[in-house]
């Protein structure tokens, strides 16, 4: 989403490449770049993940709070998404420059997780109608190398997978006020069931009816419009949204959504197996930022 001003000749080269089925870096239209993922690198959060895709670098942290629920859903916990675009990622994010992107990203994530078939929020209930667990998901964009939506959603899923919430016990009641004790045993924790958590797949329309996934910043300059699709591991589509000023023909849109569904299922499968692998690696060294 950074603004690079490409010349007409470069744009032409990128567009023709997509037409011929070979992108500038040799990928085909449905190829992703290699993703690097690490969870549990922030000690002070309940769950965290850092995800890198070429130059895109996103850090996601999850923190738990106890709060009263919304009156309409007294038995359901809440997920709140906050996105911060660091000015280090792109100079135009300085000040309020990244706000538009941050709002669209956080509202898209909120929408995609709002479906009841994604994450079972009733498990986050502590005392019905009084206290529920609220998960604050903070997404920090550290570097921008294209395809922010997909990367962030994968980061959110990984961070939620790694989230460990201490068990909360109700110990007594004092004049109508409940008393709690929070377990400080690091193994006595609640985990989230993320087996249905969705991810986002972006299809960028480059020209006519051709779309690509995982665009580089240069490609993002060439495509006027993209469609973001939220997919769960069983291929259920929870939300779609179009960004940008262009248009899709119905056929293109249908193909894009269908391919997002297929791709999404594959990526979910990969991500899950990798996360479990990392979990089972007992003496894992945290790599972090160094």
């Amino acid at each position, binding site marked *: 989403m950074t603004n690079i*001003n490409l010349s*007409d000749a*470069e744009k032409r080269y990128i567009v023709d490449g997509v037409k*011929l089925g070979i992108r500038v870096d*040799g990928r085909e239209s449905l190829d992703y770049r290699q993703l690097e993922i690490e969870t549990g690198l922030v000690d002070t959060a309940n769950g965290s993940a850092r995800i890198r895709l070429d130059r895109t670098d996103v850090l996601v942290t999850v923190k738990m709070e106890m709060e009263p629920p919304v009156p309409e859903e007294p038995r359901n916990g809440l997920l709140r998404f906050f996105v911060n675009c660091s000015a280090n990622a792109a100079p135009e994010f300085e000040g309020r420059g990244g706000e538009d992107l941050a709002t669209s990203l956080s509202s898209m994530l909120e929408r995609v997780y709002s479906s009841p078939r994604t994450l079972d929020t009733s498990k986050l209930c502590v005392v019905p109608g009084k206290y529920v667990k609220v998960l604050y998901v903070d997404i920090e964009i550290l570097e921008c190398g294209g395809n922010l939506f997909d990367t962030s959603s994968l980061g959110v899923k990984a961070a939620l997978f790694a989230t460990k919430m201490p068990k909360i016990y109700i110990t007594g009641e004092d004049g109508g006020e409940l008393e709690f004790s929070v377990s400080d045993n690091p193994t006595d924790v609640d985990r989230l069931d993320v087996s249905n958590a969705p991810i986002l797949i972006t299809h960028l329309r480059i020209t006519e009816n051709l779309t690509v996934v995982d665009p580089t910043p240069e490609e993002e300059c060439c495509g006027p419009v993209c469609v973001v699709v939220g997919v769960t591991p069983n291929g259920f589509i929870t939300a779609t949204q179009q960004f940008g000023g262009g248009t899709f023909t119905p056929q293109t849109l249908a193909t894009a959504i269908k391919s997002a569904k297929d791709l999404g299922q594959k990526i979910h499968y990969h991500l899950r197996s990798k996360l479990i692998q990392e979990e089972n690696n007992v003496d*894992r060294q945290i790599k972090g930022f160094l």
Partner: protein
Amino acid sequence: MDIKLASELPRMRSMIPAHGSARPKLVTPGEIISHDTSFMRGHGTYMEDEIQVASVAGFVTRVNRLITVTPLRQVYQGAVGDTIIGRITQVQNKRWKVDVNARLDAELRLTNIQLPGGEQRRSSVEDEREMRALLREGDLVCVEVQKISDDGLIRLAARSTKFGKLSQGTLLAISPSLVVQDKQRMHDLPCGARVIFGANGYVYITPTVPQEQVSTYTVNFEEVPIEVRKTVGRLRNCIKLLAHHSIMISPTSVMSAYDQSIDQEYEIKDLLRPEVMQDVAVATVQKMNE
């Protein structure tokens, strides 16, 4: 889609020693290089109480009695006579502002370019009005550094047929310190692509063009065939991987990496994966050292 855990990837890129030399000494700003006062103070160093101290992070290089520190990452400083690549950022009165990876945008005056039609034509009022027809915002130009003003502004010139607007291709930005200093900057490589190694760290890869069409202010928008695209894509990924491993970029090293990647039967998109990148980089260094 390929997902890797951070712990699976090599913790640090293995340092590949430079051609036949011992491991170079790496210094950080403020680190003492030498107590010996008989050495001469070069770029990237300063004297403090008769002690030579590094002012940038980089490698110490010694030529006879002169000690300099070559920075790991830097912006382009500018040197008169360099052939560089720039991107037009603004069209102003009788001049263009050009991004050349330096501290300030460089300046290219209308009087300093060779106008189409006529070797020694003076620029007229019409030319001033039609400046955007020659070069627009976003266009890439290959130019020469004519002068550097006292305030650090780089003045550019393109008074020869070999300079001018660049046609279809792809741009890579690498650190200027990685580009080998060479008189010849434009190379028609034997694999069938033309690479311009800008002294400012911008590398442009284009399909080879017949000699008579080289550099005018019109661009050829013909579709580039798929075979040429494969060559360009492979070159792009090779240059990227060499730069990633801090290997000097020259036509020899690029061609060597290109041949290595073909010999080892890597596909173009394979060259985006870190382990393959490292593999090819190590093989290239070994080949170059032979």
